């Protein structure tokens, strides 16, 4: 067994990796291409970083391509992202033209490779237009939507739908996100990589170092929310919850750690709003971390007493999975994939308001043993359901499903 797979076997169990090998046998040598719009930052890039080499170790010929575009392209795709999440965003024609031109330009570079592939995975709306520029494609094309598209803004969805309908299949993270499309819509929740810098075990010394680096007091309770500075992540609501809880727990500290992604032009604006809401409170630490600060994020999550993810819309909420993997109870917004992970009274609490979050913060911080038990339950739940190995198994199953047609039982034995 090769070393990368062996490393995963040590965490997920040898049976899990054996399972992957058996599934991959029938796909040996298949050419698979993944396309997205950023190499670093954001959950998609983090998943592909390991999924691609693992697929190669399993014998599939897998590559990962990244498309690029100008400022107007990214403005357009950010608007599409927000619109899919339900924001009523009208996208001006000039931005749509920039989107279409960027896809056409990227197709010039990628056409040969994409047309020859057996399977092409197009991640999110940014590269969705590539299919229309590859008329001689011979493989199956799958559109992978990582966004909570349960209530999309219809004018924008109708525009995207025309493109996406031509794919052979699509993937959504949860059943609620699926839309009416004329092809199979597979449901595959995303996953975390337990061996990545963001999730790997850290020494106590390394965790302790973040207290010094960010001027935090290890003797006082710490709340942490890790997410982009994005309105749907409700960082302002987190500060409000912290303030309400602090009335009862005066030594409370809060870290809002925001990663950045090269395809998110809105981050700066939200960051300014968050700073204004924090109003120079010395116990609120707003950290703007570079996209490669994975070990720092890992240490912050491990340093936390409670991890928050108070999103109002969420694709899946991998930061919740990350926190669970580190044995932390999570207080999360009752939305999207957070619902699949945060189970009330077992792995944390689902909340709807800053008031609800504050109540649960107070509730948990007064029951340390319960917090620990919840953390352990969360870790096992994450191990069984949300690690990269499960994600990879479902991708392989999907490829076999696409290859063998739309029947219930595909017998390869």
């Amino acid at each position, binding site marked *: 067994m090769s070393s990368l797979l062996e490393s995963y076997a040590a965490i997920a169990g040898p049976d899990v990796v054996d399972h992957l090998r058996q599934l991959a046998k029938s796909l040996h040598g298949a050419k698979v291409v993944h396309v997205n719009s950023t190499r670093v930052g954001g959950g998609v890039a983090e998943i592909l970083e390991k999924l691609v080499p693992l697929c190669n170790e399993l014998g599939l010929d897998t590559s990962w391509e990244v498309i690029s575009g100008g400022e107007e392209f990214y403005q357009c795709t950010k608007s599409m992202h927000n619109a899919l999440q339900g924001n009523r965003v009208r996208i001006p024609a000039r931005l749509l033209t920039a989107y279409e031109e960027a896809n056409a330009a990227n197709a010039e570079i990628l056409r040969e490779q994409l047309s020859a592939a057996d399977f092409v995975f197009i991640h999110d709306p940014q590269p969705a237009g590539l299919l229309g520029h590859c008329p001689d494609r011979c493989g199956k094309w799958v559109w992978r939507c990582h966004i909570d598209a349960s209530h999309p803004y219809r004018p924008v969805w109708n525009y995207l739908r025309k493109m996406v309908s031509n794919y052979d299949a699509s993937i959504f993270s949860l059943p*609620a996100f699926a839309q*009416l499309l004329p092809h199979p819509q597979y449901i595959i929740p995303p996953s975390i990589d337990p061996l990545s810098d963001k999730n790997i075990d850290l020494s106590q010394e390394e965790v302790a170092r973040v207290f010094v680096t960010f001027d935090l007091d290890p003797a006082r309770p710490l709340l942490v929310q890790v997410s982009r500075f994005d309105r749907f992540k409700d960082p302002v609501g987190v500060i409000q919850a912290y303030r309400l809880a602090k009335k009862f727990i005066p030594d409370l500290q809060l870290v809002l750690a925001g990663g950045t992604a090269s395809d998110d032009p809105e981050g700066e604006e939200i960051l300014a709003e968050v700073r204004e809401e924090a109003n120079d409170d010395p116990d609120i630490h707003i950290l703007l971390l570079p996209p490669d600060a994975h070990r720092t994020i890992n240490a912050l999550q491990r340093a936390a007493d409670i991890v928050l993810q108070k999103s109002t819309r969420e694709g899946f909420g991998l930061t919740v999975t990350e926190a669970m993997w580190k044995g932390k109870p999570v207080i999360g917004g009752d939305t999207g994939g957070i619902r*699949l992970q945060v189970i009330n009274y077992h792995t944390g609490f689902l909340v709807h308001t800053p008031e609800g979050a504050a109540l649960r913060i107070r509730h948990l911080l007064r029951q340390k043993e319960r917090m620990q038990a919840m953390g352990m339950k969360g870790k096992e739940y994450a191990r069984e359901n949300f690690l990269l190995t499960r994600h990879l198994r479902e991708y392989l*199953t999907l490829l076999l499903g696409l290859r063998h047609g739309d029947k*219930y039982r595909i017998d*390869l*034995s």
Partner: protein
Amino acid sequence: MENAPAFAVKDCALITIATGRKAINLAELRDRLQVVNLASIYHHFWGGLLTPRFEEREFHNDFAGWARHSLREPELAERLAAIDPGEFQGMETVRQEILALIDDTLDESETSRWMPAAREFEFLRGQLVVFDTARRLQTPADLAEQIPKMSTSSIFYHFIDARSRVPDNRDDFSFWLSGYGAEHQELCGQLAAIDPFFSSLSQIRQELAELFTAYFEGGAP
């Protein structure tokens, strides 16, 4: 003693597919149920065993869970939860039974026709990829040693999925053992008594392992 061919240990992987059909109240659920593919009804009874789920299932099928938690119809939930597909001749008769229970509720309460659920019911179906593990059991006594080594998905394939493939709703182990004539008839009866409704796959594996160990290593009667 008659000899049956070796038992081929297979494994499977399930992928979930959205059908695009959703229901926001009981009347809509009824309408969708009438036309949805039987594979979807099958999935909502058994697919949960192979998909992310926390601890043990409160209800044995997704229809019952939705009726209780989204529709707030506890009586309907209990009636739906009592449906055991093994007692019916095929999923079409299961569909008719569900529809009859829903009709009873709709007849009893006018509000249940339009009262919206807290969350939509999303009709899903599954696609099962089956592959050969290359492991073979030469004699029934091998079951005691090999069951604990099987993956939970292998248990799903041989003990749950088998019921839709093998005559008389049997599992693969019973079907194989029946190739030995009446020799293991009692064991087959004990296998039939394991109720997969109340257990996770790892619990079923444990029950099977204990049963085979007691039967073969304790000495077959």
